[in-house]
């Protein structure tokens, strides 16, 4: 059982396999991985000494046995809890191949970490405890592997010694797993029986299970297919524009599909500008040809507009372009995904605004049953329609792992809250074209002699939004401005009467009001919007619809105590009595704006004085062209 004496050398020309290990808590995943590193001769002497010392400390009953799981359980918190809570990457090589392993946690609540590990992997090693057989988690992990595009799995049936190395038990588990794999679209499955602590069938064939004649785990990993879905058509997202001086303009990026030769005709997407490739530049000299995976810099034969986020593609076989998609989303945020809330979406090197317009269904990750859903919680998978504010070049995830994959970023916290795999463009995007109109906003506002604006009044119920806005509108009207007031309460009698007061409905409410305000600004009007709009991300979304300086956020800052004292509609009293649920300020949060153009501290001031502050702010921005 001694480790090999010499670390196997790896030549410079061996290739690379990335794989993940997954299994349930206590399946022995860390032990198997530790054993793999040990058998590959990757555990240096000083680490081995530390391992022996730690093993003795933890297992007084078996002082001479090595606990291989200690090699890979990294963080302090994990050592205390005895579980792996985050993805850890390990590196080893044999004489035939280099490996990067993502050690993926088995604990139920960390599905997102598994997806993270799976996203770059070409193969998954799925562990099963021979005593327990397939568990709901086995199915869940395999589903996520399949969802993330892994098409080859090694099923390691572990702890065979605890079932007396019985072939029938192994065969039943292997059979059941192969059936599952077929359902999930995993095309290549290898099964083998192992005993991780002693290394049976890990690095060497087991003498205890002569009925298994197949390859060891190491041999399977050395022989696995290293290709990932990258398509055959040339694709390169532009990361960075290289402009050292006036004589050179190159587009730097990593080729994510197909190959390219000098002279090839390409198209820059989504704008569809065509050019020919003049040079393929690298620091090691120009190339005549380049292929998927290479980081290069291209120059083109003519000056066209290309910037970061564009995709350079084969001109004869360009990528589809769209702004509406169907996609699977795996939610990783602590706050739920709400339809119509705006998020940043990053795909390739492009970042755009995105909203999930509908959740068609969520997927029970244990059974793959489709369930109705109005939101996605942490670790849930949904099949969703997505709407972007810009058209992008894309591929289905099945065809291309770069141009079919995106992450979602919370606009307030900047956290990565979701990941998604694109399926196809929605027909609507290709069939509903933007109708061009001859008259535009500028023309319409010139004829009104004013700069259109959206004055967005936000604040608690009873803060005085409508009262102040009403005074502002009267004053503007008397000065000859063209205005319109959109009051949240009034709109709920018509446009928004189908919406309730759940967080999801509040998001949709604000989205509709913002879109209507946007239309009215486009018509050249000064629009006054009064909605509680309690969430920062919705106010930011509203702002994003408008041009620079068009959106004026007015925070009507009245304390909760004061609003409650006034209680003009008797709503606070009802909310306190439990007759109204999810009432802002009582049992639903109000996120105080930190980027409002104007903050009206209402305490001690009359509404007329406050209205005058708003009018002043507005008129200071009006370059008056009126008579």
């Amino acid at each position, binding site marked *: 059982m001694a480790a090999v004496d010499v670390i196997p050398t790896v030549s*410079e020309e061996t290739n690379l396999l990335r794989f993940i290990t997954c299994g349930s808590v206590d399946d022995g995943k860390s032990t198997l991985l530790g054993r793999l590193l040990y058998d590959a001769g990757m555990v240096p002497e000083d680490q081995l000494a530390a391992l022996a010392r730690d093993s003795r400390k933890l297992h007084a009953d078996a002082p001479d046995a090595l606990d291989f799981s200690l090699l890979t359980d990294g963080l*302090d918190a994990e050592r205390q809890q005895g579980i792996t809570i985050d993805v850890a990457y390990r590196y080893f090589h044999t004489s035939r191949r*280099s490996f990067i392993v993502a050690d993926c946690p088995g604990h139920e609540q960390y599905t997102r970490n598994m997806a993270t590990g799976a996203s770059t992997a070409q193969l998954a090693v799925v562990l099963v405890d021979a005593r327990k057989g397939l568990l709901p988690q086995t199915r869940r992990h395999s589903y996520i592997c399949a969802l993330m595009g892994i098409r080859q799995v090694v099923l390691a049936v572990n702890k065979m010694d605890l079932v007396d190395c019985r072939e029938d038990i192994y065969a039943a588990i292997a059979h059941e797993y192969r059936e599952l794999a077929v359902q999930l679209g995993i095309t290549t499955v290898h099964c083998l029986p192992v005993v991780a602590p002693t290394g049976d069938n890990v690095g060497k064939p087991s003498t205890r299970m002569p009925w298994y004649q197949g390859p060891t785990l190491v041999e399977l990993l050395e022989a696995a297919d290293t290709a990932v879905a990258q398509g055959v058509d040339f694709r390169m997202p532009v990361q960075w524009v290289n402009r050292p001086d006036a004589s*050179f303009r190159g587009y730097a990026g990593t080729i994510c599909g197909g190959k390219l030769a000098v002279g090839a005709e390409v198209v820059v997407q989504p704008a569809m500008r065509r050019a020919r490739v003049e040079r393929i530049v690298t620091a090691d000299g120009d190339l005549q040809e380049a292929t998927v995976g290479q980081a290069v810099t291209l120059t083109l034969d003519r000056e066209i507009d290309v910037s970061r986020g564009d995709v350079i593609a084969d001109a004869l076989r360009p990528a589809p372009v769209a702004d509406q998609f169907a996609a699977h989303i795996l939610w990783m945020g602590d706050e739920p995904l709400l339809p119509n809330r705006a998020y940043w979406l990053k795909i390739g090197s492009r970042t755009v605004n995105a909203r999930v317009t509908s959740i068609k269904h969520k997927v029970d990750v244990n059974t793959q049953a489709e369930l109705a859903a109005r939101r996605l919680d942490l670790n849930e998978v949904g099949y969703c329609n997505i709407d972007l504010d810009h058209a992008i070049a894309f591929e289905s995830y099945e065809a291309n792992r770069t141009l079919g994959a995106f*992450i979602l*970023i919370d606009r307030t916290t*900047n956290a990565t809250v979701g990941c998604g795999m694109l399926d196809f463009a929605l027909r609507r995007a290709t069939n509903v074209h933007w109708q061009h109109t001859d008259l535009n906003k500028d023309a319409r506002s010139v004829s009104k002699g004013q700069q259109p604006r959206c004055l967005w009044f936000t604040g608690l119920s009873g803060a005085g939004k409508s009262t102040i806005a009403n005074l502002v509108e009267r004053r503007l009207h008397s000065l000859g401005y063209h205005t319109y007031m959109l009051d949240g309460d009034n709109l709920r009698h018509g446009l928004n009467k189908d919406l309730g007061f759940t967080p999801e409905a509040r998001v949709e409410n604000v989205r509709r009001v913002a879109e209507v305000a946007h239309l009215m600004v486009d018509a050249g009007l000064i629009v006054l919007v009064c909605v509680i709009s309690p969430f920062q991300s919705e106010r930011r979304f509203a702002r994003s619809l408008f041009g620079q300086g068009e959106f004026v956020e007015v925070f009507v800052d009245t304390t909760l105590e004061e609003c409650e004292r006034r209680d003009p509609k008797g709503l606070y009293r009802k909310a306190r009595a439990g007759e109204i649920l999810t009432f802002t300020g009582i049992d639903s949060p109000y996120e105080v704006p930190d980027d409002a153009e104007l903050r009206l501290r209402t305490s001690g001031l009359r509404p007329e004085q406050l209205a005058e502050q708003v009018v002043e702010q507005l008129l200071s921005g009006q370059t008056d062209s009126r008579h």
Partner: protein
Amino acid sequence: MSHLDALEAESIHIFRETAAAFERPVMLYSIGKDSSVLLHLLRKAFYPARPPMPLLHVDTTWKFREMIAFREQVAADGDVEVLVHINEDGVRQGISPLTHGSAVHTDVMKTVALKQALDKYAFDAAIGGARRDEEKSRAKERVFSFRNAQHRWDPKQQRPELWHTFNTQIQKGESVRVFPLSNWTEMDVWHYIRREGIPVVPLYFAKPRPVVEREGALIMVDDERFTLREGEKVEMRDVRFRTLGCYPLTGAVESTADTLDKIIDEMAASRSSERQGRVIDNDGNASMERKKQEGYF
């Protein structure tokens, strides 16, 4: 594609993403072999343009003299700006690894100094040469690793990192640490240095050097600040270094490997890990993780 080509392309992708997404990126330059590889990749990533970011060396004033000479040579190449920062407060207090021990010295002259420099220049992305194979807590580090405005790392609040689609969004005052060599091993680094002919500090190659045996480590006597304890004597031995840091904290290994080929052969036969020679890692269990939370690289 060979695995070295794949690693090189991945690192170049990370460099370019950093330059494009951040306003004031910097590359931390520690003068060691990993920094040499980083610098080589930095030049490659932006060729034919000059690197669009400066290098920053946090100088503890206790580096080997040959390291400083090497740094000056890099600065003399002229294609990239080399910034040097020293914690002058620490110098005034006379902080020294010999009298204050490795923990205090590292905190004041490295961790605090690094934070001072990042604040001084308002860098929002700092590229470093750390690799995941170096140490257990590094194995879970992200490629783009988020730091709050106090430069702290929270291992429980790390952003999930999928594909090569990196989340580069931060608020003002926050920053990221970026690790383009995350997926490289020590062996990959040496293979790449040999393949690309990258210059490294001569201390990596064996030759007779004056060393003292202290607490089980071979410490090189690099200047007159090193004082001998009772019973210690300076000997000339054939040694080299696997990692480079502050000379009183860096143990040499006895070796005759004086070429790259010999170093690689020696490593293939070696049975001890790279950071073993570093005194800093042994200040208590999981000490690297704690240092990282406090802002150490």
